[in-house]
């Protein structure tokens, strides 16, 4: 069976109906384990003290914030090329999840910044790019909300998502060019030397898995809602026309 079959709304609804409890269960399990482990059972870092515990929220949220946008980009492309409604609706469903993730990353980062850098906010390129990403999410959501006809909205937001992605990447380089920052470099590289030590590493991985699963679960659930809402819109239109 081709993968595209899942783009049939009926099929999608039927299949995800079976998956939902499992995905939610796995997400809850991983998230709770990761966060509880991180919060209660990890030692303090020798430099950052107990504040390092924020990492179990901050890093996964930051990762998902970016990944959510990437997913929206792919879904938008699929809609533009193959015009599968499920794909457009999945992009719509992912945006609020992505925005929440961005907000969590920003909030935890700001809270973390207060003890470590002595300020809530600096115009570091990484932080700046995140703020810009937040703005892109806002624009995307606002455009969806402003247009009443769902197919028109799907087309326009998809175009916006494409163009926006290009400009988001440009902004990232612009911000790097503009100000070299204070923020941490990558610490999860494959190179064992650079890695944070295992005590922090495993709960972090667990928590990342939890965020990924939670993202998947929420997007699936919201996509189901959007499909229903789309169907509802079509029905009510037809009702009014006859």
């Amino acid at each position, binding site marked *: 069976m081709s993968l595209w079959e899942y783009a049939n709304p009926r099929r999608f609804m039927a299949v995800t109906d079976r998956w939902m409890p499992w995905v939610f269960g796995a997400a809850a399990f991983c998230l709770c384990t990761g966060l509880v482990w991180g*919060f209660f059972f990890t030692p303090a870092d020798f430099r950052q003290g107990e*504040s390092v*515990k*924020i990492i179990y*929220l901050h890093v996964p949220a930051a990762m998902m914030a970016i990944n959510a946008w990437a997913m929206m980009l792919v879904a938008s492309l699929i809609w533009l090329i193959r015009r599968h409604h499920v794909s457009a609706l999945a992009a719509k469903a992912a945006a609020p999840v992505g925005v*929440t993730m961005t907000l*969590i990353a920003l909030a935890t980062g700001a*809270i973390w910044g207060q003890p470590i850098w002595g300020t809530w906010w600096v115009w570091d390129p990484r932080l700046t790019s995140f703020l810009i990403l937040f703005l892109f999410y806002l624009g995307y959501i606002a455009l969806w909300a402003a247009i009443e006809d769902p197919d028109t909205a799907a087309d326009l937001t998809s175009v916006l998502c494409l163009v926006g992605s290009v400009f988001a990447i440009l902004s990232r380089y612009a911000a790097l060019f503009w100000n070299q920052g204070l923020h941490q470099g990558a610490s999860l590289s494959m190179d064992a030397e650079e890695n944070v030590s295992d005590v922090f590493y495993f709960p972090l991985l667990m928590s990342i898995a939890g965020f990924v699963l939670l993202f998947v679960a929420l997007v699936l659930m*919201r996509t189901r809602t959007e499909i229903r809402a789309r169907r509802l819109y079509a029905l009510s239109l*037809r009702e009014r026309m006859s």
Partner: protein
Amino acid sequence: MPELGKYAIEVTSAYAVSILLLVGLVVLSLRRGRSVARALKNAEERHKNG
């Protein structure tokens, strides 16, 4: 509670804010999902009957 040292406020508030946001998102998603599902059910019935 684990020993959080001088960062107690920061760490707990970070967890509180994040969990609040996540729970908020989940609750909103669930609520909207329910209401849309209910509305759709009504509409489908009306559609079939009339």
